[in-house]
Structure formats: structure tokens, C-alpha cells
């Protein structure tokens, strides 16, 4: 398969145990240089833990991790040279301005594409002369995004990078990740939003309660391309037993909600017989998907 040096990220049996919580359990993951991988999981699945382990900010309970062949725990500063990070929380120094913060982040990384930085500032409509204290959550997030993207680092580690951004800025973010992909940068994108990962990533890794449950390309994971159907029928609810590809079926009187994998015509045909009053077909949320894939309590199991 892939040669060692072509691997941007490689973890072997990587684990992190906090007292009674296995935040990350036995993670074996390989990310090839140049790919955009989605790291998908609900809150508390262990996404942030993984990224902090890769950065050497926390110590693993077991296993090891490498970035471009260099050990993350033993030689962190060396690995950091090829990495830029968008952390999960937008914590910055309130007394610095946006421009000062970007300058500092650039200094700490080492290299900055200044022209691209200014382009990003325009694209994200950030006013860098303002103090961070006065920024909204979204603006702080923009500073972090620009700070990571402007370095053109070989590997971008992004922890739920669009949290706090409005839809227009999410679009700007997608454009930027597209540019990074074109340049051959590797992007590790942690997210709890299926739609975001679908739009940007060639490959998806699904994390659940600290365990990697699936890895594959989107086309391999057909079940991820399910849609959610919400319908109200006019007459009595027909028998859906014979319809293929249904999951997570919930019926309440004349109202139906379910996930459909594959073609939806068979379902529509059955529903038509009773007369359809309303029909909504949309992408499922990760929560619905987990419900369909792993059953009740699969999504919130650890939160309680």
C-alpha cells in the first residue's frame, strides 16, 4: 500500500484514558499525504482528544502517532513545522488586535504566505485592526482559520473549524479548503456535521465513543448517502414492510419519518397509494444517521 513517507498521519494503537472514560480507544489510522479526510463523530466522541494527541499537547495512555514519519510525542516541535492548526476553542489574547494575533501566529509557525493571508482577510471579511476583545465568536474563529490557512502548511489539523461561522463564511471556508486540496495540502477535518464532511472530503473516518467504527471513501459508504424522508399521508399508513433500504422508521398516525438508502422510488410508490399530503426529502443529520446505523442511544450514549 502507501509508502511510509507518503503518510501525513499514522497512528498505531493510539489511546487516551481519563479516569473512567476511554476518550480514545486503540486508534489505528493512516492518512495519505494530499487527501482531505473527514473525522466525523458526535460531541464527546474523541475528536479533540485525537488532535491534541497528534500535537503532543496531551500524552497518550498507549500507542503512538507520527506526522510525516516523525513521532508526535518525542519530537513535537519538529512535527509542528509541517502542521497548522485550527483549535476547537477560539481562545485568543483579548488585548491583542487581529493583525497582531495573525503576526504572532505566523511567527510561531515560521512561514507565512503574506499575499494569501491578505486575500484570506478579504475573503473572510475580517477587520484586523480591532482588538480580539471586541470580536464576536465568529470573528475569533476567522482569525484562527486565517492563521492556519495562511501558513500553507503541509498538514492542516482542523477541529470543528466552522463552529460560529455564518453560512456565507462557511462557503468561504469551503473554497479555502478546496484551494488547499488543489495545492496538495493534507487536510484533517474534524466535524460533527455530515453535510460539511460530504462537501469537502474524499474519505471519512467515523468515531463513536472513542472508537473508530468505519473508514472509507464516501462512495464506499453508501449508507452515509442516505436521505431522510418526512411524509404525511392522506389515508391510512400503508404497510412499508416490503420497501428496501429503509432505516430508523418512526410512524405517528399519518406522519412518517425514515432514512432511505438507495433509490427512493419504491417508498414513494407505496406512499402514493394512500395519497401524499406533504413530503420532505433531505440529508439526514449525523444524529439521525447514527440512530439508523447503530440504534437507540448511539449518539448521546456518553453524554447522559
Amino acid at each position, binding site marked *: 500500500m502507501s509508502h511510509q513517507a507518503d503518510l501525513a498521519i499514522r497512528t498505531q494503537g493510539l489511546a487516551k484514558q481519563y479516569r473512567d472514560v476511554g476518550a480514545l480507544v486503540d486508534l489505528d489510522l493512516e492518512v495519505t499525504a494530499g487527501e482531505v479526510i473527514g473525522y466525523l463523530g458526535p460531541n464527546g466522541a474523541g475528536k479533540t482528544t485525537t488532535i491534541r494527541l497528534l500535537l503532543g499537547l*496531551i500524552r497518550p495512555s498507549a500507542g503512538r502517532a507520527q506526522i510525516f514519519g516523525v513521532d508526535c510525542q518525542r519530537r513535537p516541535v519538529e512535527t509542528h513545522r509541517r502542521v497548522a492548526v485550527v483549535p476547537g476553542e477560539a481562545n485568543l489574547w483579548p488585548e491583542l488586535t487581529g493583525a497582531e494575533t495573525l503576526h*504572532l*501566529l505566523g511567527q510561531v509557525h515560521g512561514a507565512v504566505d503574506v499575499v494569501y493571508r491578505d486575500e484570506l482577510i478579504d475573503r473572510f471579511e475580517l477587520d484586523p485592526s480591532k482588538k480580539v476583545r471586541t470580536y464576536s465568536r465568529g470573528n475569533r474563529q476567522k482569525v484562527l482559520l486565517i492563521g492556519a490557512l495562511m501558513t500553507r502548511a503541509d498538514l492542516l489539523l482542523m477541529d470543528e473549524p466552522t463552529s460560529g461561522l455564518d453560512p456565507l463564511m462557511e462557503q468561504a471556508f469551503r473554497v479555502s479548503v478546496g484551494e488547499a486540496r488543489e495545492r496538495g495540502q493534507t487536510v484533517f477535518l474534524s466535524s460533527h456535521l455530515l453535510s460539511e464532511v460530504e462537501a469537502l472530503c474524499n474519505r471519512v473516518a467515523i468515531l463513536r465513543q472513542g472508537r473508530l467504527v468505519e473508514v472509507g471513501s464516501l462512495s464506499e459508504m453508501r449508507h452515509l448517502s442516505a436521505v431522510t424522508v418526512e411524509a404525511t399521508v392522506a389515508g391510512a399508513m400503508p404497510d412499508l414492510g416490503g420497501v428496501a433500504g429503509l432505516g430508523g422508521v418512526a410512524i405517528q398516525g399519518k406522519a412518517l419519518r425514515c432514512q432511505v438508502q438507495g433509490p427512493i422510488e419504491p417508498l414513494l410508490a407505496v406512499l402514493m397509494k394512500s395519497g401524499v399530503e406533504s413530503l420532505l426529502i433531505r440529508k439526514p443529520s449525523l444524529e439521525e444517521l447514527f440512530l439508523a446505523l447503530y440504534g437507540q442511544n448511539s449518539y448521546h450514549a456518553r453524554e447522559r
Partner: protein
Amino acid sequence: MAIALASPTVTGPTFLARTVVARRTARRSLRSAVLWGYVFGITVASSAYSYTTIYKTAAERQRLDAVFGANRAVAALFGPAVHLDTVPGFTAYKSSMAVMIIGAVWGLMHSTRLLRGEEDAGRWDLLVSGETTLRQAVLQALSGFAAAAALVWAITFVITAAVGQASSVRISVSSSLYMSAAMVSSAVIFLAVGALTSQLAASRRRASSYAGVVLGLSYGLRMVGDAVPGLHWLVWTSPLGWVEELRPLTDPQPLAFLPIAAFTAAAGLAAINFAGRRDVGGSVLGERSSREAHLGMLTGPFGLTFRLMRSSIISWVVAVAIGGALVGITAQAAGSTVVGSSVEQVFTRLGAAGAGARAFLGVIFVILAMTVGFQATTQLGLMRGDEAGGRADHLLVGNVSRSRWFAGWLLAVAASLLASSIAAGLFTWVGASLQGSGIGIWSSLAAGVNIFPPALFILGTGALAIGFLPRFAVAVMYTVLGWSTLAELVGGFVGESHWALDTSLFHQMAAAPAVAPNWQTSAVLAGLAILMAIVGHQALLRRDLQEE
């Protein structure tokens, strides 16, 4: 089809809506108001009782009065001691300074917390909208504080009056009322000062440091006024001086309530007025939310650290310099009455043997050492804050190693402690020379540098704790500092407990300039500090970063 919607009756804002901030403030003050009212009352009660049990005979009482009453060193530090041969006189003297300082510190911390702190946290965004303007919100908060102060007064009064009933104590109800009003005065003043600085400053930390500067100056001015003959008028320039001039239980002077009331009202009104002229989250000083980028220092962790510590370093050095100058001015007068008094014994126990200005300054430098130890604690708190707040991550995921981050902060804090120590020595000399007390500049500077190793030691305990127990690092430092300070006080004033003194960090250092600095001890303290930092560093390399 016509559905009658129950339309809300259109009236003005209800009483409840209009007083939400006032009630909230009062409610959130309740616990600390009750606590301090109780503490103030107990302070009075215990002073009165301990006096009646320790000094039983008239002769003993007169001797106490003769020794302490005329002592300027005592007056400088704790306020003038008059009528120590009576229970009320001793009680007023014994409780006034402590209560005055505690009240002032509570007042300024409490009001900056509930005003600027709440605003920092974004909670006023919800409260201040529609019906309530910022101006009204501050007015309401002030009335909440007034209610809290009234509660402190009431509780102090009840306890004082109850104790006053005892036949051995005998303080009348009206005297108790006056006494408790005097005791709550400094809290009232500094609640208002805190409200004002909360409008001026853009962060809670800054607001409380501005108010702290006012407090420090007030203390210093009254100290000089009390100690130096001919400069007594300085007492009247200081808010704490006015409180002192109320002279409860001995020689009441209600006139002093006038400047107190006027100053408090002026600060309160200014606060309300400034609130009306700014935005929620904004401030009067440093209002600009944007500015030119200053990139000069931001090239890496060292520059950033200095940038983040800049205002802290400046405030501490200035505070220590002013404090040093003020005690320097009082040294000659205060020291002149030490010899042959029981104060001399206390000073001797504290290691400041001898007489005159040198002995007095020996004790003063011990206090300055505690101050610089406090500086170490707050500045290490900034370092821990950067880790706890997740800001250190930005450096540590770049080209900054943990070692560099750790060393950068510690060196910056150590440099800032050294700057304060030197400022203490230099400005104490300046003050002392003004009064011709014959302390040489080198001996004063040496005394300044001499307080650096204990502060470094406290920093070392913090560095060690950062490695093993980062969440408790600041608490560990406060424990070392607090224990040493307490042991010093207990050991100094209670003759028998020399073991307490031995456990005090500050007792390890020579009380220069009363005696020559002991550089061997200093080297040991500094060496231990470095050792602790190294061990802490090794632990830091092994642990997780811990946010909060």
C-alpha cells in the same frame, strides 16, 4: 376565523423589571456581607475580651498605654493608638486598621467583580437592553451595594452592642452604632471607587488594580501623616485617613464623615455619569477598540510574555516604589521611638535588632518582601491563565517547545520581581533621605536586592506546582506566602512561639538594613528556587496540558 389574541396590557416597565440589577446585586452581595459583618463584629468582640483577660489591672493597662501609645512606628503601621488604658480605646485601636483594610479590599474586589467582571463575562448584554440603560444599571448596582453595606453595618452593630453590654467592656449602644458605622466606612468608600474604576477600565483585572492603587496611596499617605510630626495634615488627604479620624470609642469626631460622604458620593456619581457615556463592554479609558498593530515585540514567546505582563510589571514596580518612598519618609520619625519600648522586643524577634530608622526599615523590608512575594503569585497566575485559557496552545503547536514556554515565563516573572526589589531599595532610600535618616543608598539597595530571593523561592514553589498540580499552582503559592506572613506576625507579637517564626520563609532572610544581608542564605533560597523550577519543568514535560 377571528381569533382574539390576548394582547399584553401596555404599561411602563414593571417595578420588578426596573430593579432587576439592584436586586441581583443585593442578592449576590448577601453572603459576603453577612460574612464580613460577622467577622467585623467578632474582631471587635475578641479584641475587647482579650484585653479584659490579658490586662486585668489598671497598672498593666497604663503600662501598655505608655509603651504603645506614643510609639510612632506602631502608629505608622497600624494607626494611632490612644487611650490604650481603657477597653474601648484598646478595642478601637486593635480592630480599626485590620477592619479598615479588609473592608476596603472587599469593597473594591466586590464591586469590580459585580460590575466589570459581570460585564466582561457578557452577562450585562442581557440585562442592559430595552428598559434598562447602562447608566440605570450602574445606579441600581450602587443601590444594591448600599443595601449590602447597610447589612454589614447592622450585623457589626448587633455584635458590638451585645459585647458592649458586658460589665467588663461597657460600650454604649450609641457608641456601638458609631463604631460600626466607622468600621463599614472604608468598605463603602471602596465599593464606590471600584464602581468608578469599573467604568474607566476595560477589564476586571485592570479595574481592581486601579482601585488598588487608590487604596495603596491612601494607606501610604495616612502612614506618613501618622508617623511624621508636622505632616499630620497628610492624614486628611487620604480616604483611609478620614476613617481613622472618626476615632470611634475614644474621641469621636463625626466631622470626618463629611469628606467620606462627599468622596463616596462623588465617586458614585462619576461612575453613573461615565456609564451613561459608554457602550456595554466598552470603557472610558482605552475606549478605542481598534488600533495600529504593534508588531515589534511579537516575534515569539519572550516578546509575547513581556507584552502580556507589561501592565502588571509597571503597576507592581510603581506600587512598590511609591510604598518604599512613603515608608522611607516615615522611617526617621517611626524609628526614633523604638528604642527601650516593647516594640523593640517585637522587632528584635523579627530579626530587626537595634534601634532607630534602621530597625524600623528592617521590619518594613520584611513587609516589602511579602509584597513582592504576592507579586510573584499574581504573575505566575498570568502564566497559568494562559495555559488554563488554552492560549498557550497556539505557541506550543508552533515552534515553541514546552521548555521554552516555561523558561520564558519564569525568566520574565523573575526579572519583574528583581525590578520591584531594586525599586523598593532605591525609593525607600529616596524617601529616607528626604527626612535625613542617614541610611546610605548602597545599604538600602542591598536591602532591596535582599528581598528578591524569598520572592524567587515563592515563584519556585509555583513553578514546581505548575509541573505537578497546575490547577493548584497559584493556591500553593498563596499558601506558602500566607503561612509565612502569618507565622511572621504570630511569631513577632507572641513571644513564646519561636517555632512559628522558624517556619516562615521571610524569617530566613536577614532583616536588612537593620542587620547586614546574609548572602549565603539568599544563595540557598535562590538555589532551591531554581531546583524546584527544574523539577517542575521535568514534570511539565511529562504531563498533559490542562485547560479549565
